[in-house]
């Protein structure tokens, strides 16, 4: 539909204005800060400081990749299983998946402290069994767990949507042509659900790599992820806005590159656009 009617433009106008003010303008401001120094003069000096943040970048990307893989491994079978259920059960499970998202994610993250803490629920139970405590909180594992828990709905939902759209007659045709159930999953379901997977990976990886707070609360606040570093810089004062903007810009470019790579995997029309 290349020809846009006047009506459709009017309908879209509020959102376009919204997007311009709250997405485009902030991006331009960020870019401006990233390429200037504290006096507002053009400078690339911020980019020379990036080396200091390589551990933070590395950790963020590493944690995000692990978290994305785990969410994918958990979500894919779950989504498949869901499509096999009665419609009413599907709706029920869908609601259960969405339910935690009705709560603020800061609170959900905070509640993991009481579960994982040295004196938390799990360790109290282990104490009770006489097994002794495990170091759960303040570990990379806890941070990744936090990411998986917070972002898993963003993986299940697109995969589930893609799978439930698969026409049942395709599966029947595959069976008629001699596929067993395993090869049906491999040759029919997997390729057709790929757009959902790609979309899910992007929607989990992007918030994971840029997250802050989770690492502060569950990771002991000792090693900064890149989101934490940006938060610290912005909170410390205006003289850090430039370097913080540079970090944000680089993070965005990294995310953009990842998204483009992911999109190459699916030549489907429904490829994600971020």
């Amino acid at each position, binding site marked *: 539909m290349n020809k846009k009617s006047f009506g459709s433009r009017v309908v879209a106008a509020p959102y376009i204005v919204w997007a311009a003010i709250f997405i485009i303008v902030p991006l331009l401001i960020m870019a401006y800060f990233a390429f200037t120094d504290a006096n507002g003069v053009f400078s690339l000096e911020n980019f020379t400081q990036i080396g200091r943040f390589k551990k933070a970048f590395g950790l963020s990307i590493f944690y995000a990749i692990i978290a994305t893989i785990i969410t994918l491994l958990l979500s894919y079978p779950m989504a498949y299983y869901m499509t096999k259920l009665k419609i009413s059960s599907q709706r029920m499970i869908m609601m259960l998946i969405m339910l935690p998202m009705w709560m603020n994610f800061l609170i959900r993250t905070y509640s993991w402290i009481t579960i994982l803490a040295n004196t938390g629920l799990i360790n109290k139970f282990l104490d009770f069994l006489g097994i002794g405590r495990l170091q759960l909180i303040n570990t990379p594992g806890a941070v990744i767990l936090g990411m998986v828990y917070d972002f898993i709905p963003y993986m299940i939902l697109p995969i589930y949507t893609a799978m439930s759209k698969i026409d049942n007659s395709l599966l029947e045709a595959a069976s008629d042509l001699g596929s067993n159930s395993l090869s049906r999953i491999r040759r029919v379901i997997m390729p057709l659900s790929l757009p959902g997977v790609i979309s899910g990976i992007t929607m989990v990886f992007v918030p994971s790599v840029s997250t802050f707070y989770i690492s502060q609360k569950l990771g*002991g*606040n*000792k090693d900064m992820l890149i989101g934490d*570093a940006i938060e*610290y810089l912005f*909170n*410390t*004062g205006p003289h850090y806005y430039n370097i913080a903007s540079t970090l944000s810009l680089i993070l965005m470019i990294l995310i953009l590159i990842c998204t483009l790579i992911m999109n190459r995997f699916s030549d489907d029309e429904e490829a994600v656009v971020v």
Partner: protein
Amino acid sequence: MLKKLLPLILCLILCMSLCCCGYEYFELNLEGVYTREFEGTELNVYNWGEYISDGSEGCMDVNREFERLTGIKVNYTTFESNETMYSQLKNGGVSYDIIIPSDYMIARLKSENMLAKIDTASLSNYHYIDDSYKGLFFDETQEYTVPYNVGMVGIIYNSALIKEPEHSWKALWDKKYENMSLNFNNPRDGFMTAQKLLGYSVNSTNLDEWNEACELLKDGKDVLQSYVMDEIYGKLETGEAAIGPYYAGDYLVMYDVNEDLRFFYPEEGTNIFIDSVCIPKCVKNYEAAMLYINFLLEPDIALANAEYIGYASPHNAVINNPDYCYYQNEILYPNQEDMPYVEYYHDIPENVRMHYEDLWLDLKLY
């Protein structure tokens, strides 16, 4: 029909039970005069977290009492560090009528011309402030501040989990307490623990001394469980962590929850601070702000705050009140001979400040 209405009714009941868990107003003996001429206006108060008696557990809700008295609506927001407060204020776009920063931040705000003068002569309760807290380095002419609380930093430990440590900052670096010790999650206080251990001034302008303190903090990072601010309450109270530095007043509040907790002032000396009420230049409702300050200075209100917050009070009617729950408390009001060596934070030159902010980032990125 009923089936459809039922959820609605349940929701209503829930809302009502949330709204109406009754707060009973106190009977106040007020000395100042509080007009209602500013009724309907708003007052934006920006204060530290857990830093006013807020009506929990039957204590007084100071803001609600003020609202009832004057009809002024109090918009109360909190900050976690002086630096956060500063950057909020500096960024603009916010409007506060009352802020309660610490000494060194007051000096900085004053030097950057961000504070409005307070006419103390028109505050009928101002005479209660002890003279020893007036005219200090951050406000020598006493024109911009009204002291609110005084505090000192010490080390809190859980006597059920560890034996009494040597009274030194060294405890925070001690491998015995690996994964059980905490430290401050703000640069100034965090560096203070290392600077005191090294015997340096917390106001040093020698960058090498700051670098050395940073190296020391990096050495201690592996031993620490985490860097915290107010989360230290839960961590020490539940035994999640065994030892950590915090403000003396907060120790008393934690002790109410867990009586195994103990407190000492490290022998190398520590930091003392005064948080004072100020009016920022961006004030919109100056008259109401003055009423609020005078209200905070009411003996009844000051007592409620002092008992809730647990910090030492600069208010003579509180200090000399035998009914005050921390009356002559030896941690808050130590005798001359038990008084640790203390140092105030001063506003230090910008290059030093930016240096230590950078070092703190390095410590976290390390």
